């Protein structure tokens, strides 16, 4: 799988595609993500059957999601970048295609507050939280997140006295 094949398969759903040393990298919009993923999962030329990884980062202007998918049959790696606005971070959930990505989506919600439409727990923020406590407020990986400092449990003697 390389950039040309992907351009051929995806056509205008693709914003850009390039071959990188360890993977093929494409950029799509959030609206197209689900159809692109469905296509790449079922297309015999790509066969992305392996749930890799989802993560995201906040650049301060927008949130960039990073998907990594693999094909066990062909043995290739594909990374997808999706950019969403910070104040309305919504992407379609792909956990129906790769159930293994369920928890990664939950982690992305947990850390960055991205709403995954179609995720079974999407309407229940308590179930959507995975690493942080259910009643946690805010999303720590957002650039505007201000940590609530409740005191260092390992303070030195200067602070105790």
């Amino acid at each position, binding site marked *: 799988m390389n950039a040309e094949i992907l351009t051929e398969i995806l056509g205008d759903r693709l914003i850009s595609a390039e071959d990188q040393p*360890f*993977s093929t990298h494409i950029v799509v919009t959030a609206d197209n993500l689900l159809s692109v993923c469905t296509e790449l999962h079922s297309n015999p030329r790509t066969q992305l*059957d*392996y*749930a*890799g*990884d989802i*993560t995201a*980062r906040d*650049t301060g202007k927008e949130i960039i999601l*990073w998907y*990594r998918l693999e094909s*066990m049959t062909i*043995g290739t*790696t594909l*990374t997808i970048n999706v950019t969403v606005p910070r104040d309305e971070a919504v992407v379609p959930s792909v956990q129906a295609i*790769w*159930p*293994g*990505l*369920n*928890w*990664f989506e939950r982690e992305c919600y947990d*850390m960055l507050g991205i709403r995954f439409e179609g995720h079974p727990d999407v309407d229940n923020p308590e179930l959507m*939280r*995975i*690493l*942080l*406590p259910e009643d946690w407020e805010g999303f*720590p*990986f957002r650039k505007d997140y201000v940590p609530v400092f409740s005191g260092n449990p390992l303070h030195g003697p200067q602070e105790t006295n």
Partner: protein
Amino acid sequence: MVNTATTEQRHTVEVNLGPQHPSTHGVLRLLVELDGEIIVSCRPVIGYLHRGLEKMFEKRSYKQTIPFTDRMDYCASLNGNLAICQAIERLGGLQAPERAQYIRVLLCELNRIASHLVFLATYATDIGATTVFLYAFREREKCLDLMECMTGARLTYNYVRPGGIPQDLPDGFENGLNCFLDDLLKALEENDRLLTGNRIFRGRLEGVGVVSPEMAAAYGASGPVARGSGLNYDVRKTAPYEVYDRLEFDVPVYHTGDCMARYLVRIEEMRQSARIIRQCLKDMPAGEIMCKMPKIFKPPIGQAFSRTESPRGELSFYMVSDGTPNPARVHGRTPSFVHLGMLPAMLPGVKIADVIAILGSLDTVLGEVDR
């Protein structure tokens, strides 16, 4: 899976397996719905060990992130060191000298043996054979002695640096290593007679917690879990890093997909690791162990992705640099996290005793799950 009508009819019992439970190997909570001894549904609750490592990475320089990866997978912390150092090297365009690469591989494999021995020990205890625990730890102790001689620590090695390794092999290391490998192979053979061949042990594991290859792929299983399900997927072979492409070793693959297959994969991997270590000792060239590094390391803007085959599976780091001395974002994809996500699909229909067998066979480390 279960609707309320049937639960009411059946009078199921909800049991919290954990967070404090002898067999969750850490602080994992499994909300299990029981119908007698049989599991109806299961919801893993994690995060009890969450320390926000990824957030901490953002506030620290590249080199300072390394000791924190020790705290992720504490049974095989060297693999975490290696994975993050590879990501940093790729960001900064560094290349470790060949000798350093050999030593890294050698130690990673030694660490894999130590980790699998912990698996063997805890798994046998989960199944009820307490004696194997101590036999496995007896061997692991020697392994840790060697690691201590090499790295200076027994568990949190912090030994790999971007661009190489900080110290060369100590005197007498090869001799000690050879002794250990001889002992290990003997102990493994003994273990085969004591545990692997045991009728009860086989009965407990065979046909329990079956994962099909399709399911393994769809859930992103890696490492021994994937290879026990018949997926021939080993990062050391599919995307070789360091000097793995020069070494000769087999990737054990079993097709039954049950707990026994996962157990056997790990046992066989220890033998293969011993093989790799012997080759490393033989092939290792003399020379530098550290490449030239700038005093303040500032990689160019960009993103890097590294993956290694940790004893638990594919451990990968995604690292973004914004040109400052601190990384802009670090994300670790830890295999235990993925494997725990498989539990809700694997558990319904099995018995309580099987929950322990299945959970143990995934060999999760909660430090890695929660990060």
